[in-house]
């Protein structure tokens, strides 16, 4: 079956739209509230929903040239083995001339060595397909999927090519394009551990990570299911990975999350103790790498100041790409729930 932007009901995509709009809308709202409260109370910071907290305990350290080289080598080793990858993403454009942040959501599929499908699901469906150095764009027009043109199709080809290189850790092959610096960030974040062993059997911990200063979002990491993304305005764009919905105890999981949501009014009062005795609060060290890419070419620097890739310290998966533009605009692409080693149908990468 060919996958086209007009298609719906793709059970492999973990459709954000479906998840958000259908069965769990209410729960998501409630969980968002919980998450916001957690972020504001557990971490001892000001309200996520009202003001921007500081990252006081974030200690970035610049990697030396030797360490950077070793880091890039390790990344290439680890990511180089990736044959397929699927990740959901949230794409936000912050524009100085406009009040609103333009938001799009979607899912990307990658198959080594150079096949990438960048599919937007919201605000309207469309897909960019990169395969064999060629790019095609598909859009849903009048209810029908059509291959269409794009004024920036050629540039998109190059951007998508770079993304495929980065996804497989081939940063060193772009060293002639960008100056690179790498920082390792380490900070202490609150980890909530369910007090009940029955609950712990399903959810063993929830890490609360605020990325507000850099991206305007915060995350709840709920391994192994995935992450929950919370915005400054307290809306939630994601829910733990679709595998949670397929869990043998999915109903039980839902119930636990409902229970968490039900505690929101208590947490609204603003103290972490409101989270107890449901959770035990622990401290957890959270590390990530920030790889900054600055264009070498002055002509390119007129349009891109820098690109920052945020990578998990353990898996080296790219969590976020932030593109800074000289006018002060930024494009932030946050990846969630990456899954590797999955079978991907050829039709995902068909150009016609």
């Amino acid at each position, binding site marked *: 079956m060919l996958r086209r932007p007009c298609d719906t009901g793709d059970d492999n995509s973990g459709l954000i739209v479906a998840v958000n709009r259908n069965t769990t809308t209410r729960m998501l709202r409630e969980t968002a509230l919980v998450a916001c409260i957690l972020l504001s109370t557990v971490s001892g910071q000001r309200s996520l929903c009202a003001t921007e907290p500081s990252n006081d305990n974030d200690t970035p350290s610049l990697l030396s040239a030797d360490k950077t080289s070793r880091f890039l080598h390790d990344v290439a080793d680890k990511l180089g083995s990736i044959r397929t990858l699927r990740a959901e993403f949230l794409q936000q454009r912050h524009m100085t001339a406009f009040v609103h942040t333009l938001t799009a959501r979607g899912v990307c599929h990658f198959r080594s060595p150079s096949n990438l499908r960048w599919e937007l699901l919201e605000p309207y469906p469309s897909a960019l397909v990169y395969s064999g150095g060629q790019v095609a764009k598909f859009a849903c027009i009048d209810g029908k999927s059509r291959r269409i043109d794009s004024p920036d199709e*050629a540039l998109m080809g190059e*951007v998508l090519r770079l993304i495929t290189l980065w996804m497989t850790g081939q940063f060193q092959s772009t060293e002639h394009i960008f100056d690179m610096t790498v920082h390792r960030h380490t900070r202490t974040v609150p980890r909530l551990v369910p007090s009940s062993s029955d609950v712990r059997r399903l959810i063993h911990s929830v890490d609360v990570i605020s990325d507000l200063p850099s991206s305007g979002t915060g995350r709840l990491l709920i391994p192994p299911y995935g992450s929950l993304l919370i915005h400054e305005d307290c809306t939630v764009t994601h829910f733990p990975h679709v595998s949670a919905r397929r869990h043998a105890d999915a109903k039980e999981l839902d119930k636990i999350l409902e229970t968490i949501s039900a505690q929101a009014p208590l947490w609204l009062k603003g103290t972490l103790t409101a989270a107890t005795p449901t959770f035990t609060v622990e401290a957890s060290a959270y590390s990530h790498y920030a790889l900054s890419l600055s264009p070498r070419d002055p002509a390119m620097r007129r349009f891109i100041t820098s690109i920052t890739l945020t990578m998990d310290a353990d898996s080296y998966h790219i969590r976020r790409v932030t593109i800074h533009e000289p006018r002060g605009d930024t494009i932030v692409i946050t990846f969630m729930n990456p899954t590797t080693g999955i079978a991907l149908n050829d039709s995902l990468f068909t150009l016609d």
Partner: protein
Amino acid sequence: MTVYSHSIDMHRPHGICHPASIRLLSCCALFLTLLACSTLPPYRSAPAITGLTQHNTELESFHTPFPPSYEITQRVVVHTATHAFDMTSVLAMREDGSWSAVALGSMGTALFRFHFDKQRYEVITAPASTPRSLLEDGVMRDIQHLFSRRLTDASEVVLHDESLTCLVTRRGAARLDEYCFQRDSRLPARSSRIKDGRVISEVTYHNIGVFPDLPTPVPRTILLRNNKWKYSLDITLLEITALTHQTSSDE
């Protein structure tokens, strides 16, 4: 991100824009050929405006449905004779009549940026080879027609036929905008932009519905055909937000 590509060092074997520049320029050349270089058949003359009424008390009811200052997000599909382009656009319209707009590509890259203030049309960002006249005389004037204030001191009401009441707003000596509404409901039906008696652009309004924060219904779908530059725009409104204060301008 679009514009820089034409001036990137093309000799780097794996430069970010090495193949892209060539393809992008080709793409732009094609775009221009389609939009600007085609032989334009004559477009139809506007019907003579007759039956101007003096019902100026009616004028107030033809105010734009939008708030004084607002931001609107929309999907825009541009059709030419042989191609279709797909963009997301954000338009900030301000109470003083100035506005800024940006059109974004699939990955959030700014393809076009426009700014209008004090009767001056300014193209801030566009592919280098796209003619300014196409953007200023075509696209920006169409945006102005669609979203600026309909009612001015030079507006009059025309009883077009039994079903439509039209508002004619003169924009200088040679130009006028005509906005026609269903007589009963006062909902927008069609409009046109006319210069020297010729219909430059024709617009129809569809899927009229209520958006949050707006007191009156607005069309969710706008179809515009520009007869002069030979393109059409399918505009789908995604979000409209009233602004309570002026935003910073693009300049």
